[in-house]
């Protein structure tokens, strides 16, 4: 029997398995972001928007749309990818994955690909919901799509790493709750960092999320707090780092094999 160097069917099987898992919870997967987005518009858009009418020439309601999408993308990518690989570890079904003719490449493509796909779909749903509330224009649609994909993949990779690393459901929740949510809220999702006083503005520049959100916002409005080059290299760097960590994790079998 001729065995190819890449098990394309295996990767596809994992991908379909994960997408089927999402389909089973389709309703809550779709309804939750729609309701959340609407709430953000009511709270931030109306309450704050009545005081801040414009940010850098963009209506406040429209200004927060990229940030909202990023926020959902971060949390959904992390939770889906981390749960996807953590659950088989938890139930013991991981034995099959470990004994299958698949390498880290097929496993990552399957799990991360599926989590990223779901995040992108959610991002589009949020965009559609937001467009009901505010008129949205996208200056660089191709770049916007590329950015969306890149961020979804990066955070799904990070989520995958967390899922491999985690030994309990608490640990699974730890990074998203304690690290990512604050970084996102402080990362200019709902305001321009130019609105901050000098010192805070400098401090904020150490928050990597700022670069991601601003880069994404730039693809919408062509304006951002930070140069799009810096933002894009930050995103690519983050993606590369996650790839390296995954590679090392599997090479050593860390927390997957004894």
């Amino acid at each position, binding site marked *: 029997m001729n065995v190819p160097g890449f098990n394309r069917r295996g990767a596809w099987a994992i991908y379909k398995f994960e997408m089927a898992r999402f389909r089973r919870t389709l309703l809550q997967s779709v309804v939750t972001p729609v309701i959340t987005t609407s709430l953000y518009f009511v709270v931030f858009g109306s309450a704050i928007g009545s005081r801040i009418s414009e940010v850098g020439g963009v209506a406040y309601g429209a200004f927060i749309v990229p940030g909202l999408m990023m926020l959902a993308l971060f949390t959904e990518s992390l939770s889906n990818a981390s749960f996807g690989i953590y659950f088989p570890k938890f139930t013991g079904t991981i*034995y099959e994955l470990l004994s299958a003719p698949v390498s880290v490449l097929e496993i990552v493509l399957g799990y991360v690909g599926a989590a990223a796909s779901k995040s992108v779909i959610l991002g589009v749903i949020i965009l559609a919901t937001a467009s009901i509330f505010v008129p949205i224009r996208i200056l660089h649609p191709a770049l916007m799509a590329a950015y969306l994909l890149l961020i979804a993949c990066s955070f799904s990779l990070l989520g995958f790493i967390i899922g491999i690393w985690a030994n309990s459901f608490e640990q699974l929740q730890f990074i998203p709750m304690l690290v990512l949510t604050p970084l996102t809220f402080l990362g200019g999702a709902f305001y321009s960092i130019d609105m901050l006083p000098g010192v805070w503005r400098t401090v904020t520049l150490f928050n990597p999320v700022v670069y991601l959100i601003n880069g994404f916002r730039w693809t919408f409005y062509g304006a951002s707090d930070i140069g799009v080059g810096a933002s894009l290299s930050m995103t690519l760097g983050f993606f590369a780092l996650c790839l390296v960590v995954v590679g090392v994790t599997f090479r050593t079998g860390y927390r997957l094999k004894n």
Partner: protein
Amino acid sequence: MPAALSISNLTKTYASGLHALKSVDLEIRKGEIFALLGPNGAGKTTLISTVCGIVTPSAGRICVDGHDAVREFRACRTKIGLVPQELSTDTFETVWATVSFSRELFGRPANPAFLEKLLRDLSLWERRKDRIMTLSGGMKRRVMIAKALSHEPQLLFLDEPTAGVDVELRRDMWGLVRGLRDSGVTIILTTHYIDEAEEMADRIGVISRGELILVEDKHALMKQLGKKQLTLHLQQPLMHTPAGLSEWRLALAAGGTELHFSFDASEERNGIPALLRRMDELGIGYKDLNTRQSSLEDIFVSLVSQRGQLRP
């Protein structure tokens, strides 16, 4: 023709420092049923797990059908099917979905006709659309067997397949194992039921404390190590073994109505005729007599306890 499985110097030391496998060498022939026997914690599951890629060996080499398990892991694993000891299934999936998944995961093209036959053979066909969580424990185990066979492996591992399994499934399982062997599949199983190993296996390996103590053809093993026991049903019960019979290793049983004599089946002169003559002389009458081959269990217990004495 390369061996179905060839293991040399296989060693595993867990992070805890426990030596679960100590330089194991083992060669499995194509098409045989090999039973790995050993008490709990002997290292059976660890051995299987290293071959299947679930546990990373500390040292040693594994070859499956001539392919190195590390360098050619894809070729190796495509050939291997595993039914692990623990029952773990994707509870939310349907039977059909999970078995199809397994086949694809192992890189095989879809083959609904084959999967249908497999599910029918395992009495799972009627339940194919049901979610696994709705199945009983025995049915879940059948699902795990179906998953392991879904990609048509040439080498099948069954890790304590009948532990805690009902009679019907046990019978079906052995029927299946025989059928697989007839179609050329090599089978390695671990079991606590020694009578099963005795009944099913072609060869038997005994493992204890991470060491493979012996590997032997089943019949040769029985011959070599088998003790026989002669039972004499006495006419008159005895209080103690008569002094005149002290040359023989005898024991009284059944309230003094039975006399037991253990002897080596392999020995030419087993001492039975002499014993019977002496009993005649002493006037000890017996109604009936029979001999019994000692089971693998007896052999196994004596082997493991011998070893245990060597090493405190």
